[in-house]
């Protein structure tokens, strides 16, 4: 009776899920609605295999093919009355929000440990002393502001398209952020720290650039958020808005990365600290890879993508 072809009754489908590597039959789902989404199939699969929660599942039509999207509808896929899906375990997953919060909270606190010269970092005679250089205090404010801004953006601004990432990323990311934060904080707050060669002039200029870049970066994050309504996964070309900081969209696809690079270069200039410059360089390399990828997907998806735009550096890169 489930297969009756009476008008208005869509034929129900069956779904079998096989392991992509061993082809072992893992699950058989009976009486599935044709308009069911992959997300719903994943939920049903979890019932029989609770250790594989939905975000950990990759389901595909071909064992070596691309993962199906959660919003794909079963009947729109090239399947017969019995759909065969192949399962691959993506490994333990962790939410993007958790990763961001952890990787940003670390540098915030670690830097402060060095700023307050907590015991066992520098010689004991320096414990809890304070630097006599203004720039050192300014640097602490800037660094802390930067990471507080990032934490707030993670909680209130960003809209993530993917919910999770592999668990091992959190170790990799935290090592990077926390490691570099400790390394640069060590030198900036060191009793033997040498202030910038051009003194207050250099510091003021660097600070101005830093503030501009932080405002710019925030403006771009807000503009990107407004581009996509809550809960939707629509993709649109970002354009400049009334906010002058967003006018950088005329020249680059990822001005948020451009501003971020500017922030760190200016921080390196402000502190005249080589480890900060090295951190900027590594960050620049990674952001350029991301920007190029994003730029490429924009070009692929939108025929009318503005030709003047470069991925991250106007006219150059």
């Amino acid at each position, binding site marked *: 009776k489930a297969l009756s072809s009476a008008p208005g009754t869509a034929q129900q489908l069956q779904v079998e899920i096989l392991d992509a590597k061993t082809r072992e039959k893992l699950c058989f789902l009976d009486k599935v609605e044709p308009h069911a989404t992959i997300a719903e199939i994943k939920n049903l699969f979890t019932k029989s295999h609770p250790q594989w929660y939905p975000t950990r599942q990759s389901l595909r039509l071909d064992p070596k093919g691309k993962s199906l999207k959660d919003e794909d509808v079963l009947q729109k896929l090239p399947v017969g009355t019995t759909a065969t899906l192949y399962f691959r375990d993506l490994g333990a997953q962790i939410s993007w929000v958790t990763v961001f919060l952890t990787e940003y909270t670390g540098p915030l606190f670690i830097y402060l440990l060095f700023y307050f010269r907590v015991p066992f970092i520098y010689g004991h005679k320096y414990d809890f002393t304070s630097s006599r250089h203004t720039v050192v205090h300014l640097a602490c404010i800037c660094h802390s502001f930067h990471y507080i801004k990032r934490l707030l953006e993670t909680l209130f601004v960003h809209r993530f398209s993917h919910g999770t990432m592999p668990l091992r990323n959190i170790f990799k990311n935290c090592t990077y952020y926390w490691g570099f934060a400790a390394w640069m904080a060590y*030198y*900036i707050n*060191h009793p*033997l*720290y*040498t202030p910038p*060669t051009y003194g207050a002039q250099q510091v003021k200029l660097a600070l101005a650039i830093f503030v501009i870049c932080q405002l710019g970066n925030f403006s771009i994050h807000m503009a990107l958020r407004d581009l996509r309504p809550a809960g939707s996964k629509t993709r649109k070309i970002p354009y400049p808005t009334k906010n002058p900081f967003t006018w950088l969209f005329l020249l680059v696809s990822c001005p948020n990365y451009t501003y971020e690079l500017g922030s760190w270069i200016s921080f390196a200039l402000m*502190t*005249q*600290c*080589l*480890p900060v410059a090295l951190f900027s360089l590594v960050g620049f390399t990674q952001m350029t890879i991301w920007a190029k990828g994003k730029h490429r997907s924009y070009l692929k998806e939108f025929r009318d993508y503005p030709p003047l735009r470069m991925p991250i550096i106007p006219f150059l890169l």
Partner: protein
Amino acid sequence: MAVAAATAASRGNGGGGGRAGAGEASGARKKKGPGPLATAYLVIYNVVMTAGWLVIAVGLVRAYLAKGSYHSLYYSIEKPLKFFQTGALLEILHCAIGIVPSSVVLTSFQVMSRVFLIWAVTHSVKEVQSEDSVLLFVIAWTITEIIRYSFYTFSLLNHLPYLIKWARYTLFIVLYPMGVSGELLTIYAALPFVRQAGLYSISLPNKYNFSFDYYAFLILIMISYIPLPQLYFHMIHQRRKVLSHTEEHKKFE
């Protein structure tokens, strides 16, 4: 350093002859391989490198016979050793432009660690040049490289004698630990001189607010050798697969 001695069963260098050990990029992708011009260049490159390391081998033997002892032979082959080992940097380029199917990252790691040992340790700390540990890794590298480069040459010409393949996948069993020991002992011997001279080190205060302790860095390098035994056993496991695969092929000829 760490992976310097691991070149025995790893890395491709033109021609896919035989599945390799730990280091080679996944050959699962059906890459069309280097074109005729690239193949000609690679054959020349590999022949030149084979010849170079043979020169070093002969140099060692002659020096030994002339001196009557195996101590301080480094000085007799210092120049060709530096030239040909440094020349291996080209292999990074080969991977980068795609004429060799190996991973750029892995190849860079391996070549840079060799170059590091030659220049940043042996060349820079003159006092270790007379150490026997230097001879240990030079011999290991020399034999390994002669076999490796001739392996690649023959593979590119699609005529790989089983002997070369066998040698590549067997001799590493002795050469790998030999090379690693030589390298570690040399770095260890260099430590007191680095400390004494403050070699390549910079301390605070300075206007770039940066410091570097080469002594501590060398200790970290030595620590990085720790995962090597694991790699070694993996290569031994790979060896069984590769050599038995060839044996079976021969049965059906």
